[in-house]
Structures are given as structure tokens and as C-alpha cells.
């Protein structure tokens, strides 16, 4: 609940004017709808009495009011929808941006699984309901109730008490469903849906493995088991919704019956005029619609609460994890410090029994090409992650150009070091956009040149859209090796003092690999290179090789 309120506050702050305007405009159609019936009841009764007694009745004013109310109701509904939706979309766009920056400020802990992200986007989309289905109806109901109470108070004390009683009943119903919002069921439903999705995905992509290990039929039954859990969890919520619907409409009907008796008594004691009495009854007839506006929001409350909590957590959990402070000596004496220096660096994954790297020390001098060799899993790639500050060492110090890595400004560090990771990420975007991530203002010539260096120019030229070809489904289907080469081209758009290349020529055939390697060495100029590789051809061009498996600890 706390999180829902905080989301409301966030939305309020995004556009305070629109926030209130939406609620205010929403009052128009609701009030007009109630008044329309009330005035109509009053009018026909007054007309009947005038018809019977021959007393003069000004008929044009009431009939004009009735038509005006009909128009206000219509126009108000339209205005309300446009304004409240606009406010919500503004808020969601803003929220998306904030979630993105929260993630980008944070560390790159193993948090960012595809699953979590999928859920996050769904959660953000679910939050549009908070304002539309909760805030606006609640505002409208509060204002209308207040006006009703004033009106009833002006009629008679008995009517006021009766009205307060039933308003209280609706209020209690609302409060109860707030209190009882079953977030656990919503969470169970989410978990079951995710299990269903994952297991179904496994069933499609790992068919041979499943047929032999565990059986496809069992896998299908597994998915159905998740479906059953999903159904059970949803059932709770749906039953509650139906219950709420039933109770709300029953309250409305009992109210109607009660006010009927009360009004007739009022007419008998001559404390109420017949026209006013019938107006009051018809007013109550219109109330269930007013209070019904709140029901969809209330029934979705558990889902919203869950979504709000998760989005809020995602925002807060990722605010910058400060790196452990590490004792580092001053930059080395001498005119040119090493580009990269590891001093007794130890690293292990949080909670793991074994270290990945243990007191590793080495340095890379300016312009030097250093190879890092060793079998897979020995921590070669961890060196790249450490040097680019994606992970923080457990102990030891890392220096870049003589400065403690943990204290270098982010933009400075990124200018000094370019990393080609083992699994570089390519975005679902055009080739050009993917390349320009490295250098925003690169000319087309520079892009083509980079592609040429990575031996990918011809492949891109084959495509009619050239640099504008979109990667991914329905677009350019690049093979694994080609994707790596595109990532390499991207890296080649930068001019750092150190390149860290993790398996640079993976997926390239020997001739192309040799060519790409040769071009790179010419291109790199005075930059130093840390070449992480298990293939001879890359290690052969290195001035010096560090072998990780020779360390007794690794």
C-alpha cells in the first residue's frame, strides 16, 4: 500500500496541474449523471402536480437544465478521458526513464536477468491503472459524496442520517478491500505465470534433452502444473471481485428501498414536497454507478500493489553500490606508468567457495601487446571485467595509467579503455545505431572503415538498406561470428590507450582472422592491448604472454 501511495505521489509530481485537472473534469460527468435523474424525477412530479391542480409551472427552465446536464455529462466524459490518459502517459514515460537511470547508476550485479526485466516492463505498464482506476474515481466519489451530504443536510436530518449510513457502508466496503488486497495471491499468480513461460520455452528449445532426460510428456505436465497454480491464484482474486460487485450493488438497492420509505414518510408528515421526495429517490438510483467506478480499481489493487512495490524496489536497489575502498599505492615513479597494473588482485563470486583469481599481479606497459592465456573458466574474462570496473576485486588494487581504478571518473575511464567482451551485446536496432554507440558523431566513412577492418563491409553491402539494416528478427540475420565482428567494428571506432579484447577472432576462419588481426595491429597505433585468447594466432602476435593456469591457485 505504501508503494502505491508513493507511485501516486510520483505521478502527482510529474504533472501536478494535469493530476488535479483530470480529477476535476471527471467530476463533471459523474455529477451530471446523478443530477440528470434527480432533476428529471423532480420535474415529472412537479409537472404531474401542476397538471392535476392547474398551478402554473415554469417548464422551460427544468427541461433546459435536463438537456444541459445531458450535454455536460457527454462533454465531461470526453474531456476526462483525454486529460487523465494524457497525465498517465506522461507519468509512465517519466517512470520508464527513471527506471532506466536507476539501473544505469547501479552496479552490474547479476540482477539483470531477462526474466526480471520482462516482469519490470509488465509492472510499469500495470501502473497506469493507479491513477485512472483508483485516484480519479476516489476523487470523484469524495467530492460527490461531500456535495450529497451538504444537499441531504439541507433537506432533513433523517435523510442526512440515512445517507451517511449508506455512504459509510460503501466506504467500509472500500476500506476492507484495501486492507484485504491479497498481494500474496498476485505474487503467486505472477510466479506461476513465469514458471509456465519458462517451462514452455524449455519445451520448445530443449526438446531432445527433455525427451531423454525426464521425458517430454512430463515436461508438458510440468507446465500444466504451473497452469493449475496460476488458476488457483487467480481464482482467489476473481472470487473477491465478484463478491465486491455483489455487495456494492446490494448496498445500492437497500439504500434505494430505504430512501423510498423515508421519502414517503416525509411527504406524509409534510416535511418534504412530493417533487423533492421523488427527486431524492431518483438521485439514489444513480449512485451505484458512481460507486461502481471504483470497483475495477479495487479488484486490481493486489496486482497494482505488487507492481508498485517491485518498481519501487527496482528503483531503490540499484542506486549506486559504492565500490569497496581499496588501498592503492601512489602511481609508480618514472615518466610513464603502466597502462594497466594488477597488484595482488583476488576475486570470487559472492558466496562461492573458490576464488576465481587469487593474488594476481601483472602490468601492461604503454603500447605493449600482452596475451592472457589459460583454459576456459580459469578467470581470463574476469580480468576484463575487473579492469573495466564491471566487478570489484575482493582484495588488491588495480591501477589505470597510474591512478586507482576505483577513483577514476566514469567518462575518463571509458575514454581510456575499450573492451570487446566475450558476449558483446548488440541492440535490436540498425547497424548504424549499434556502431554509433561507440562514437556518436562518427561519419559514415568512419563506420564503413570500421566495418572493413572487422571484415564485415561486404556482408553489410549485400543488404539493400546497408547501414540502416535492422538487426534481429525480421532484419539482418547475422551468424554468431558475424555478430562478434560487428561488435569488433564498434570497438574499432574508439581511440583508447588500452584495448581489452576477449577472444577477438572467435568465429572467424583462419584467413580472415589473420587479416583482421593484422589490420588491427596497424590500426591500434600507440594503444596497449590486453589480448585474452585461447587460440595460437592471437597469442602469437603478443609481445608477452601471461599464463593463468600456471598459477597454483587458479
Amino acid at each position, binding site marked *: 500500500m505504501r508503494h502505491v501511495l508513493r507511485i501516486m505521489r510520483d505521478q502527482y509530481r510529474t504533472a501536478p496541474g494535469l493530476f488535479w485537472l483530470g480529477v476535476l473534469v471527471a467530476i463533471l460527468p459523474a455529477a451530471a449523471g446523478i443530477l440528470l435523474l434527480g432533476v428529471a424525477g423532480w420535474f415529472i*412530479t412537479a409537472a404531474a402536480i401542476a397538471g392535476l391542480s392547474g398551478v402554473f409551472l415554469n417548464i422551460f427552465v427544468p427541461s433546459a437544465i435536463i*438537456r444541459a446536464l445531458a450535454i455536460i455529462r457527454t462533454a465531461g466524459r470526453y474531456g476526462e478521458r483525454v486529460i487523465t490518459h494524457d497525465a498517465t502517459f506522461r507519468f509512465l514515460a517519466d517512470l520508464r526513464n527513471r527506471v532506466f537511470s536507476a539501473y544505469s547508476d547501479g552496479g552490474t550485479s547479476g540482477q539483470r536477468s531477462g526474466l526480471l526485466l520482462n516482469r519490470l516492463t509488465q509492472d510499469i505498464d500495470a501502473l497506469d491503472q493507479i491513477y485512472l482506476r483508483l485516484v480519479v474515481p476516489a476523487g470523484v466519489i469524495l467530492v460527490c459524496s461531500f456535495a450529497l451530504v451538504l444537499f441531504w443536510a439541507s433537506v432533513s436530518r433523517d435523510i442526512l442520517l440515512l445517507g451517511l449510513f449508506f455512504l459509510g457502508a460503501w466506504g467500509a466496503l472500500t476500506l476492507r478491500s484495501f486492507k484485504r488486497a491479497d498481494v500474496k495471491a498476485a505474487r503467486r499468480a505472477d510466479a506461476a505465470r513465469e514458471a*509456465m513461460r*519458462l517451462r514452455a520455452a524449455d519445451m520448445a*528449445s530443449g526438446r531432445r534433452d527433455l525427451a531423454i532426460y525426464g521425458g517430454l*510428456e512430463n515436461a508438458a505436465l510440468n507446465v500444466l502444473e504451473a497452469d493449475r497454480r496460476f488458476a488457483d491464484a487467480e481464482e482467489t482474486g476473481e472470487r473477491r471481485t465478484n463478491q465486491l460487485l*455483489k455487495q456494492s450493488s446490494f448496498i445500492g438497492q437497500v439504500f434505494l428501498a430505504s430512501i423510498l420509505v423515508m421519502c414517503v414518510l416525509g411527504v406524509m408528515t409534510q416535511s418534504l414536497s412530493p417533487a423533492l421526495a421523488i427527486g431524492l429517490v431518483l438521485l439514489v438510483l444513480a449512485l451505484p454507478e458512481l460507486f461502481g467506478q471504483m470497483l475495477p480499481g479495487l479488484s486490481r489493487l493486489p496486482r497494482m500493489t505488487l507492481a508498485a512495490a517491485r518498481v519501487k524496489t527496482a528503483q531503490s536497489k540499484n542506486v549506486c553500490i559504492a565500490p569497496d575502498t581499496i588501498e592503492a599505492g601512489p602511481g609508480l615513479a618514472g615518466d610513464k606508468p603502466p597502462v594497466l597494473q594488477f597488484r595482488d588482485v583476488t576475486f570470487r563470486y559472492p558466496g*562461492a567457495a573458490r576464488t576465481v583469481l587469487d593474488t594476481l599481479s601483472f602490468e601492461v606497459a604503454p603500447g605493449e601487446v600482452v596475451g592472457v592465456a589459460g583454459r576456459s573458466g580459469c578467470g581470463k574474462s574476469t580480468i576484463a571485467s575487473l579492469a573495466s570496473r564491471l566487478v570489484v576485486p575482493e582484495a588488491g588494487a588495480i591501477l589505470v595509467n597510474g591512478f586507482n581504478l576505483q577513483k577514476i571518473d566514469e567518462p575518463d575511464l571509458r575514454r581510456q579503455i575499450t573492451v570487446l567482451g566475450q558476449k558483446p551485446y548488440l541492440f535490436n536496432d540498425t547497424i548504424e545505431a549499434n556502431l554509433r554507440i561507440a562514437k556518436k558523431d562518427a561519419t559514415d566513412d568512419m563506420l564503413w572503415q570500421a566495418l572493413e577492418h572487422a571484415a564485415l563491409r561486404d556482408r553489410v553491402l549485400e543488404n539493400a538498406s546497408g547501414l540502416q539494416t535492422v538487426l534481429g528478427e525480421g532484419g539482418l540475420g547475422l551468424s554468431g561470428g558475424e555478430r562478434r565482428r560487428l561488435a569488433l567494428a564498434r570497438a574499432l571506432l574508439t581511440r583508447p590507450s588500452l584495448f581489452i579484447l576477449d577472444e577477438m577472432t572467435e568465429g572467424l576462419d583462419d584467413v580472415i582472422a589473420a587479416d583482421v588481426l593484422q589490420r588491427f595491429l596497424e590500426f591500434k597505433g600507440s594503444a596497449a592491448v590486453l589480448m585474452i585468447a585461447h587460440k595460437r594466432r592471437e597469442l602469437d602476435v603478443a609481445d608477452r604472454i601471461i599464463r593463468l593456469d600456471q598459477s597454483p591457485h587458479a
Partner: protein
Amino acid sequence: MREKNKKNGDTKDAERQSLDTSVDMAGRASPAEAASLRNAGLLFVVADLLWILQAALIAYALGFLPGFATAQETIGEYARQVLLYPALLAAVGVILIAAIRSVLQARALNASRRIARGIETRTRENLLMSAAKGSPAAPFPSAGAFASHVTEQVELLGPYYRSFGLQSVRLRIVPIAIVLVTAWVSWLAALILLVAGPVIPLFMALIGMRAKSASADQQEELTRLSGALLDRIRGLETLRLFGAVQRTATDMARAGDRFRESTMKVLRIAFLSSTVLELFSALGIAFCAVYVGFSLLGDITIGTWGAPLSFTGGLFVLLLAPEFFAPLRAYAGAYHDRAAGIAAQEKLALIAGEISRSVNSGDLAASERSKSATGFTTPPEISFSDVGLRLGGRQVFLGLNLVVDPGETVFLSGPSGCGKTTVLDCILGFHAPQSGSVLVGGQPICDTAAALRENVMWLGQEPRLFHGTVRHNLLKGLPPTTTVSDDAFWQSLQIAGAADLVRRLPRGLSTQIGEDGFGLSVGEIRRLALARAAMRRDAKLLLADEPTASLDAETAADVIRGLEQLATGRTVLIATHDAEVLQMSGRRFVMTRPERALTEGLPA
């Protein structure tokens, strides 16, 4: 209703034509379900129509008020009889009927919810079960597509059947009934409703058509926007490494604003349709009220059947008017569910077609029949004699002869595409050869394959691990009830050269792997998959498909060492062209592409 009847008719016809060939995977309601939905709708209609009775009671009780006011009577027995008793009677009647109505409504809602739920589950079951029948060697929809159809697309059926079914029955009956009752009191009032009512769908259709295509585009655009956010967060590491985070954030914000502006343009049109609905229902009520008022004044004398409109009659008409429009509005609200549901059915039908094709091209069920056959207790002999197999119009084998003696190790080699994997698939029962025979332990594969699959050491070319812990994945190979000590896990991991690797994982054996967990490299996955195979210690047959492909030399050596350990005391068939693997002791069997396989029997 008409639509549903038509659909029923269609399904019946379809059933008669092809009773056994197709199970419904597109999530259509069966005739029985459609009938139950209709009944639920009728319950709902009855609850709605009871309002007419309530309205009559209210109008009856309040009808005496104007007469009383003009009669100038004082309080007394007369007033009590004329006013209070009818009012009390009406109040009690209204509450009683309200109770009945809410029971009926709850029943209708619960029934339609249950039916909708049933359709969802059944559709999932049909999709999954027929997916389980197909041979793993046959083409199959992509994982993402299959998963999203099984979850989201099927989920869209729920609201369609749950709410739209009820509302369409309601729309067909309630307004007409109300018009008829109104007409009985005043034909002119009924005419007002009739004019205002049917105009609504017409206007809505006109506006809706324009908005529909635009809003579908918008929906896609929104999906793309969410997708872009997801994409950028996934690639955040890359963005950070290139110092492009801030720039990307700005780009995303701009895209979000553009989206909002274009969406609002569409919504301004889309909202017009609901505004038209609002306008006509408000005007309908207003005109009814004005007409009734003027009639009672005596300014309008037409519109009734002879006698002038009484106050009771007029009030009754006014009470009914809102209820005439309520079903129209509810129907408009549920219309979106219908569109989404039907679109989902179309998509489901498409994927169902793909799955059926995959089942037809290779049916696992062929070998499921004799699941009772037991596994082997000694290394079996494998023999292919004169096997011919066509797959997808291509001749893969023609007269293939291959014998692997019990306990022997044979390497299948040959150019890629010569059918090495297919040989292994045949042994596992994933393909049924058109001619010749494949025997394992002297029995035809269709008798042995199902039992064999449950107890074979198999290492695929691109092994997959599943969502769950390392321990959970290793257990996959064993019957569900087996209890396994941690030592057994570590032994298997040791054989596969994966023990060190698991020790380095954040939580050892309990580390989550798969989509939501720790990313493993290809080499690591292959070693874990070998450990999974090694868990089946009683297996007497070892099959491996390119066990060292795309591995570095050291990792490949680990895998080969593991295979060597596992090979003793088992019949072994390894598809490979890696010289290092061929160093293992065993016989080499060279296959050629495509027609004829030659037995060369070179000692390796």
C-alpha cells in the same frame, strides 16, 4: 448470439468431418461450453429483467404522492393506507428481488468464469500434449513464440469468454424487453429509446473503425517501446563500456514523448466512440423525462394507447430508461476483450498448425506403446540393416548397414550433413525408417526406444540445461523418486571435469542456472551436460554427438577423458570429426553423403 450459433455449427461440422485428426488448440468453445455460457448469460438477463419488477414496485409506491399532495388530506389512517403501506410493500419487495438478483448475477459470473477458465486450461493442455508427442528431431516453433502462445495468448481467451459472452447475450435480450415494456405504457417513449439506442452501434462502428487500425498500430508501438527499454537495459553493460548511458537515456526519453503524443492523437478519436454512447444515452434519458413531464402537464397528448399517461406510468418509463442503455455500455466495454480474444484464437490456430506438422513429421507416440519394455542390464548390440530413411523429401539413408558389438566403441565420422546425428536419433526412436530394420539388443527400436530413452547416457550437440539449480539439472536423468547423495553428484561432476567449475559457482550445486540465473559458457554447459549423463550409472549405452565442437583444447581434453571413463563396460557410439576424439580406442565408421553409406571398418 447469432455469431456463436454459427460458430457452434461450424465446430459441429468440423467435428463430423475430422473427429480424430484435430484437437482444438485454438481455444474455441466446444458446443457444450457455448451452451453453458449462453445459460450463464440468460441468468444474467433474468437478473436484469427483474429490475422491471422493482421499477414497477417503486413507481407504484411513489405514484400516489402527487395525488396525495393535491388532495390536501391530513395525516391519519387514510394517509397510512394510501401512502405508507404501498411504500413498505415496495421496499420489502425491492430488497427481496435485489437479493434474488445478486444471487443470479453471482451465479452467472461464477459459471462463465469457470467455463472460461476451463477453455484456457484445455487449450494449454492440447497445445502442450501435442507438442510432447512430436519427435524432438522434427522442426518446432521457436521457444519465444511457443512460450508466449502458451501463456499470454491463451490468457487472452479468458476475458473474451468470461465477459463478452455474458454481455452479448444481455445485449440481445434486455434492451428489446425494456422497449417492449416501455411501449406497453407509452409507444412514444419506446420510440425515443429505439431511436437513441440503435444509432449508438452505428456511430460507434463508424468511429471505431477509424480508431481501430490506428490503435492496433499504437499497441505495437508501445510493445516496441517496452522492448526497446528491455533491450537497452540488457545491453547496459555495453552502453557503460562505451560511456553511452546518458545519451541513451536522453534518446529513450525523446522516444517516450513522441509515443505519448501520437498515442493521444489516436485516443482522441477512439474516445469519441464512447462519447457518442454517452451522448445518446444521456439524451435518451433526457428526452424521456421531458416527454413524460410535458405529457403529465397535458401539453403533449399523443404517445399512449388512448388514456393519457399517468404519473405512475411516466415514473416507470423514467426508471426503465437508464437500464435500456446499461447493456449497450457494458457491451462496448467488453468489445475490446472480444477483439483481443479473436486475434489470439487466430494466432493460436497458426501455431497449432505448426505443431501438428511437427507431430506428423515424426511421432514419438509410435514408440511409446511398449513403455513396459525394460532397460538393458548388459551392453546391447546395435544393428542397422539395410536402413532407408527419407526426411522432408531428402534421402538421408539408403541401404545403411552398421553393427556395433556389445561393449564396443564406434566413432561415426563423415562430412557434415551425412546423417551422423540421424543415426543417433534413430536409435533413440526419434525417426522411424521407411525400410530395413534398426535393432538394439536384438529388439526393434519401436519396442525399446521409450525404455532406452529413460536409461541412456546421451550428450547432444548443443546440450541444453534447464531453469533450476545445478542439482536439479543433474537429477533430470534419474527417476523422480531416486535419492542421491552429494557424493554421487560430485563423482559425476568429477568424471565430466566439471567439479572445479561448480565449486567456483556462487552457490555451488544450488546455483540457479538457465535464463534467470548464472550465465554459463558453451564449454561449461557441455561439461555439466556430460555430468548429467554420467548420473545414469546403470545405463549400458553411451551416445554422444560432436562432444568437443567449439571447445578449447583443454576443455575438450576434459570431455574426452570423461567419455573414456564412461566408455568402459558400455556400448558407445560417438558422432565426431575431431581428431582428438578419434584418438580414443575404438573403431571408426565413415559415412558418406547422401545416398550410400560405406562400411570401412578402419581400426583407429
